[in-house]
Structures are given as C-alpha cells and as structure tokens.
C-alpha cells in the first residue's frame, strides 16, 4: 500500500488508515480529524494559500483541545499576565507552540488579524513570541486562545517583565552603539590611509590639519556614545575599588584621544584617533556577542516557565475548583488529569498512574506511582487521573527551585575571566603609573611640558593595545576555528582558557555516556511466531522500549506491513495487548505476563520484554541502554591527561555502577536530583576545582549552569544547550577529549603569546620612557610584535588528532 502525505501536516502515512475525501478535481488525505478540521477552516476563510507557502515542511498533526480555556478569563490570570493600556485595551505576551516555519507565523498573524476585536498581533519569527492587543469589550482572551488552537497551534502566556524586557533593551542599546562605532571607525580608516600615505611620501601641514579635524569629528561620537559602556563599567569598577578591563579600555582610549587633540592643535606629533575608534569598536563587538547569547537563554527560560500551569484543580469537600498555584497550601488535595504537568510536590492519595520524569532524572522510561508515592513537580502525568496531597507550596516545589536557579545563573555565572580581567587591570594600573612617573620625571628634570607629555603618552600608546591585546584573542580564535571544524562549538573564546585549566570532568549518564535509547542486546525465541504480529503490536506504542525492539526487528532486513489490530490496550509501565484475527497478542514486562497467566523464567540485569501469542510465550528481548561508541577510550584518554572523571546521574545505583564500570569511571554519584547535581558541582568549586560538566537534559541544566564550563550534546534539550558553553554536534565522547586537547594547546599558545608581549613591553616601555621612541618606531615595533603573536597562534593548527574519524 502506498504512503501518502496528509494534506494538512505533510506527515506520511499508509493510505488505508487515512481519512480520504474525493472531489472531482482533487483527492484529499488527512491523518486525523484535527488536520481535516483545520484544512476546511482555512479553506473557508480563504487562507489556503498557506499550503503553497508551507511547501514540504512537516507540521505536528493538529490536536483540538479546549478543556482548560476557562482559566484564561480568571481574575488571577489577568493580574499576572495581562497589561491594561490607558485607553482600555488589553495586551498579552504569548509563546506560540507548534510553529515550524515562517508560513506558520504568517498563518497565525493572518488569523489573528481577521479575528474581530484584535487590534494588534505581531509574532516574532525568531523566538515565536507574540504580542496581542485586543479590545476586552469585543472579545475575551479565551476566545483568542481558542482561535489559535483551532488552526492547530497553542499559545501560552509568559511574563516579559521578568527578563525579556531588560534583555531586549540591552540588545537594542548595544546595537545602536555598535552602528555608530562601526560607522565612525570605518570612515576614520580611509582618512587614516591618506594620513599614512602622507607620512611616508610627505604631506603639507595644511592638508594634515584637514584630515586631523575630520578624524577628530568622527572619533568623538565613537568615544563618548559607543564607548559609554566602558566609562560606565570603569566608574562602577572605581566605586567598588576594582581596576577592570573597562578601566583599561576607557583610560587608554581617553588618553589617546586627549593626546591626539593636543597633537592636532599644536600641529606636533601624530594623532591616534584611528586607534581610539578601533579599540572601542572591537571590544564593543565582543561584548555584544555576550549580550546576544544571554538573550537566547532568556527565550528558552520563558518557554519553560510559560508551559507550566498557573492553576491546579483542587478538591475541596468533594468539589473541584481551579485555583492559582500560589494559593495552594500544604495538605490540599490536588487532582491531576492525563497529560498535565505537576507544579507542586506531593504524595499520592487516590489512584495510580505512570509519570514521565524525564525532565528531572533524564530517564525516558515512565515511572509507575501508586498510593503513598511522592510526586515531584516537573514530571508529567501520562495516563490516568490521580489525586495527591500537596506537601510543599509552589515556591518550595522542585520545579520552581530549578527555574529560579536557572534564572539566577543566567544573570550571574561564576567566571574565571573575571580573574583574567583583574590581571590585565593590574597591568593597566602599572602602565598608567609608569606613564605618570615618566611624565613627571621628564617635566621635572627636563622642564619641557610638551615634550614630557608626548613621552608620557607614548608609553601608554606603545604598551596599551597591540601585542598584549592580541595575545589571547588571536590564539583562541584559531583554537575555536579548529574546534568548530571537529564539530565542537565553543560559544565564547574565553571558554577555551577556562577549560584548559580544569582538572575535574563531571559526566551525566543517560544521553551523554550512553545513547539514552534502549536497544536490544539479546533475543531468545521460545516458539515460532509471525514477527509481523510483534511489529504491528509494537507500532501501537511510542515507548522507548517499543521503539528499540521495532528498530531491532527492522534492522534484520524484513519489511513489515501494517495489520489492522483490534482492542488495542496500552497499560503504562507494564505492556501492550491487542487482538488480531482472533489471536490474542500480549507484550510487556514480567509482571504483565504473570497477570496474563503466562509462565516466564529467569532474571537479568537488563530490561526484559516478553511477547506471547494466545497465551504461549513466543520470545524474549533483553534491552539495555547502549554506551556510546568510543566512550571507554575517550574517558581513558581524558584520565591520562590528569583529569579526574566522575559520573553524576539521576538513575539507580545498580545501573549507574554497571555503566561506570564498563567505561572505567571510579567515582559515581547516583540517584541525584537536578539541584543535587548542582550542589555537587558547587561543593567541588568551593574546594578550588574548576569543573567541566557534560550533560544533555533539563535535569542537567542547573548543574551545567553552575559549572565553570558546561558541555551540551547537540541533540539535548534546548535549555541545556542554551546554558552551556560548549556544544558537541556529533555527540561523541571522543569530542570531549578533543575539546580538552584543543583548549590546552590553545592555552599554551596564549601563555607563549603573553610571555612574548610582556617581554616586548619590558623592552619597549623603558625605551619609550627614555624618550627614544618616535611614532615611526612605535608603529613598526607594534606591527612586528603583532605579527609574532599571530604567527605563534597559527601554530595551534598543527595539532594532530590520532584517530582520524570518518
């Protein structure tokens, strides 16, 4: 049978299972009622050009749900998320879920525009956040959300005042400052070229004056508008009695500027307006990149918080009421419906069901909970209605704790660069002092104020920018590009340096050392059976174990058709059963088999899956989470570099130890909750260790944010990637080893460069102090020293990787 795409969502399914509509000129296929509904809605509204814009992009099948709409009109909700304008209009910020491409954005905007009462609706193409303004007299928020849901998307609100407004404002501010800086320095550059040409071939003073004034006019806004951030930083540094990088940049730029004005007016010496503009521009662009990555982190954080429910169903005197999560008190009984996210920790009182705890433990398998078990916030109720008693209020609950920890870590992250800044701060203080002394001595002993000033300033100019400034960025730039070629993305150059100094590597188990997907390691056949039956049964479930076995069956080269199974039942955390042409198919764990009266044998350290036809055991599969290829060698190599490797996992002791033994890790910390992982990292940091942490899930995010260097797997959760500093695109453990080697090699080059430029400074600065340095010599020696630094950095490229990978 042919596979055809659904007319709405483009996912392909077997033709026989689809809803087909025949028209004289076309045939439509739909995978579900939801998609069918959306298609006809769009067609009747005249919006079907959406499908031309969509092209081949695949969407999620449209699911219609309207169970919790009433909460959008509650008073508490309004106070929390809705902003009222002066003229009585309401405004809300929404995150639109289900957007895959720009056509989706177009459709949502279009539909909202057509909705009566909506005054303004704009959706951001980058982060899918929407701003909607409406007239409360004409339409209610629940109606707007319903409209978004009716076309197959979902919108949930978030509070922009927390982080986003500030992040946006900083981003805009930096953008303007950079524009001015780039404009100024580019124009100064071409004037400076004329200047330099004149320097060597001779130029009349009157022309020089014109060029000087032009450069002065261009450099002034760059220094005072674009460079304002540095003055501000230097001022705060001064208030806290710290000499920081900003002080160096600000004082260097201002002094060069003042000296240049002096040289311009007295028509003596050279002007340095071009270096003033260049210093400001380069350092500003570097700072802007930091601001950008912070903005991205804020976006992901908003989507976590936005997707958490704001209300829970409370059971009081056998009546259900919706109340805001803030008002839940200890001992309240809360009801959970299937698919709902838990926001408050508690203990089950009625009912039982399975819970997805993957965002807490990283384990993809559902956990079965019954009366007396604790429920942690952040997990998702999968299949049944459960009532539980709140044991904590919302601010004490786990989910809230994680979110606020993340929030904190985004705004202030422990950084070693601060120390590096301090060192360059000392350097700048020393240079400033030396320059001042030189100036004083020359003036006192020489008696010529002008001459003394020129010499004093030339000390700063020769020492300040070049070799020392280039030493680190040049080497790290080369390091970063090599790493990127090997699919290791360092988000910032300084991370290479930090990582090189680290002696402790903490690894998450699931998804980092292992693949995070169970696969079949052994198969035992008890009786002959039709494998197509098993495949069909497994196809009814999306559980990782079903997927693992299905993949195993498919890799053995057979192709499986689709069988129309009947009476399909999925019992979470147990198994599956179905009927096919009178045959009873049962597949699941040992407990499930016993319930069906089927005798099973032996135990195994792996997860077991049994399959029986008509009560007769047919086969058994052993599944285990496979260790990533090359993990053992990579860990051994890392240990050989003198780095201690530990494992932090949310999984049980036994399986954690088994994996640890297989890859050669001695120190294992198992059954850790997300914040316990972070606490471990913090404890090690307090002992003076620089901790590198590698992980992939939301459960690792807090620890990743706490660590000095966070490494995330390329396929990991968004939040893990956004708080991390290094992303491994190929997810190979070997890449962690490579990252270590590249960063150590780079750090070596940085040290060489710094050593050289310090040497250069110890020679050049005394010469300048002695008054031997004319501008020509300064220019020559500066470019020469820069060339040495660049050349040395290029040597990093010669690093050899033994294992050439395919």
């Amino acid at each position, binding site marked *: 049978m042919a596979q055809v795409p659904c007319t709405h969502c483009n996912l392909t399914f077997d033709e026989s299972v689809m809803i087909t509509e025949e028209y004289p000129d076309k045939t439509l296929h739909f995978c579900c009622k939801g998609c069918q509904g959306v298609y006809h809605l769009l067609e009747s509204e005249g919006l079907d050009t959406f499908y031309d814009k969509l092209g081949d992009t695949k969407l999620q099948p449209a699911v219609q749900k309207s169970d919790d709409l009433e909460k959008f009109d509650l008073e508490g909700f309004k106070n929390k998320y809705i902003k009222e304008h002066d*003229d009585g209009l309401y405004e809300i910020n929404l995150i639109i879920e289900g957007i895959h491409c720009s056509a989706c954005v177009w459709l949502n905007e279009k539909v909202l*525009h057509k909705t009566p009462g909506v005054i303004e609706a704009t959706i951001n193409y980058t982060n899918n956040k929407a701003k909607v303004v409406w007239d409360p007299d004409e339409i209610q928020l629940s109606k707007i959300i319903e409209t978004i849901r009716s076309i197959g998307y979902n919108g949930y609100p978030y509070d922009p005042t927390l982080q986003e407004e500030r992040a946006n404002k900083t981003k*805009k501010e930096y953008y303007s400052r950079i524009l001015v800086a780039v404009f100024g320095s580019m124009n100064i550059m071409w004037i400076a070229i004329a200047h330099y040409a004149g320097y060597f071939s001779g130029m009349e003073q009157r022309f020089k004056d014109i060029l000087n004034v032009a450069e002065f006019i261009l450099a002034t806004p760059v220094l005072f508008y674009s460079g304002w951030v540095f003055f501000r930083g230097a001022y705060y540094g001064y208030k806290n009695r710290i000499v920081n990088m900003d002080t160096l940049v600000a004082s260097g730029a201002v002094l060069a500027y003042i000296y240049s004005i002096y040289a311009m007016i007295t028509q003596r010496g050279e002007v340095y307006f071009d270096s003033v503009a260049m210093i400001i521009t380069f350092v500003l662009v570097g700072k802007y990149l930091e601001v950008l990555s912070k903005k991205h982190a804020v976006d992901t954080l908003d989507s976590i918080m936005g997707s958490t429910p704001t209300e829970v169903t409370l059971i009081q005197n056998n009546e259900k009421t919706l109340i805001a999560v803030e008002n839940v008190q200890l001992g309240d009984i809360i009801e959970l419906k299937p698919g709902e996210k838990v926001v408050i920790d508690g203990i089950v009182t009625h009912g039982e069901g399975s819970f997805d705890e993957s965002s807490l433990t990283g384990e993809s398998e559902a956990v079965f909970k019954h009366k007396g078990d604790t429920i942690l916030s952040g997990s998702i109720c999968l299949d049944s209605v459960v009532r539980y008693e709140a044991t904590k209020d919302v601010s004490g609950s786990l989910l809230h704790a994680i979110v606020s920890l993340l929030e904190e870590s985004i705004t202030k992250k422990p950084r070693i660069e601060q120390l590096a800044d301090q060192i360059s701060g000392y350097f700048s203080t020393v240079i400033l002092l030396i320059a001042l002394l030189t100036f004083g001595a020359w003036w006192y002993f020489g008696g010529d104020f002008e001459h003394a000033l020129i010499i004093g300033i030339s000390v700063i100019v020769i020492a300040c920018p070049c070799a020392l400034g280039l030493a680190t960025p040049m080497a790290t730039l080369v390091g970063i590009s090599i790493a990127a070629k090997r699919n290791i993305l360092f988000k910032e150059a300084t991370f290479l340096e930090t990582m090189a100094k680290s002696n402790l590597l903490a690894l998450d188990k699931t998804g980092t050392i292992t693949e995070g997907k169970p696969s079949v390691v052994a198969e035992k056949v008890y009786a002959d059976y039709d494998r197509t039956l098993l495949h069909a049964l497994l196809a009814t479930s999306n559980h990782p174990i079903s997927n693992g076995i299905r993949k195993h069956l498919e890799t053995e080269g057979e192709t499986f058709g689709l069988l129309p199974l009947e009476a399909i039942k999925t019992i979470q955390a147990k198994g599956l059963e179905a009927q096919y042409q009178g045959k009873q198919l049962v597949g699941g764990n040992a407990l499930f088999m016993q319930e069906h009266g089927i005798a099973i044998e032996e135990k195994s350290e792996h997860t077991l899956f049994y399959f029986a036809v008509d009560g007769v055991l047919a086969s058994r599969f052993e599944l285990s989470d496979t260790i990533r290829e090359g993990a053992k060698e990579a860990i051994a190599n890392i240990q050989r570099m003198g780095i201690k490797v530990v494992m932090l996992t949310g999984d049980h002791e036994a399986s954690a130890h088994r994996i640890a033994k297989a890859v050669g890790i001695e120190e294992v910390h198992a059954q850790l909750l997300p914040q316990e992982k972070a606490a471990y990292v913090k404890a090690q940091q307090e002992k003076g260790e620089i901790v590198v942490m590698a992980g992939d899930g939301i459960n690792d995010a807090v620890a990743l944010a706490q660590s000095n260097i966070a490494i995330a797997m390329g396929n990991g959760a968004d939040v893990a990637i956004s708080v991390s500093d290094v992303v491994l695109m190929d997810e190979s453990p070997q890449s962690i080893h490579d990252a270590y080697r590249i960063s150590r090699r780079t750090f070596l080059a940085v040290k060489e460069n710094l050593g050289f430029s310090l040497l250069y400074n110890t020679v050049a600065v005394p010469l300048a102090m002695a008054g031997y340095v004319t501008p020509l010599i300064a220019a020559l020696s500066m470019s020469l020293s820069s060339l040495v630094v660049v050349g040395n950095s290029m040597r990093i490229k010669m690093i050899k990787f033994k294992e050439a990978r395919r």
Partner: protein
Amino acid sequence: MSENVIITMIGISTLLGATGLAALLWGVKTGQFDDQSKFIDAARFDNEEELRDAVMMEEKRKARKKKKEEEKKKYMPAD
C-alpha cells in the same frame, strides 16, 4: 584652493554616510531590527494582500477610537 576641494569631499561623503547611520539608528529605535529572521522570511510574503491587511488593522483601530469618542459624547453627567 585645493584644501577646499578636500574639505568639501570629506564633508559631503561623511554627511551622506551620517544620513544612512541616522536612518539605521531610527530603525533600531522603532524596533524594526528586533527580529532577525523576519528580514529573510517575511519578505517572501510581502505582497498586495499584506498591504490590505495592514490597512484593515489600521481601520479597526480607528473604528475603536471613534466608538470610544462617541461613548464619551453620549455620556451625560446626571446632575
């Protein structure tokens, strides 16, 4: 004489550049660069229909304003 030529050339070219810079700064201030993907993606949907849509939204806004004003006029203090 030739000084004037250089002054004029530098002056005019810088002024032209500055005009462009001013336009860019205005764009940043009014939030036109907030969404970097919009440059690439939204341009594809930019046609007459979108223009009509924008006009429709503008009219909606006006209609509401008018309604509010009329409400104000109707309101009579009960003295």
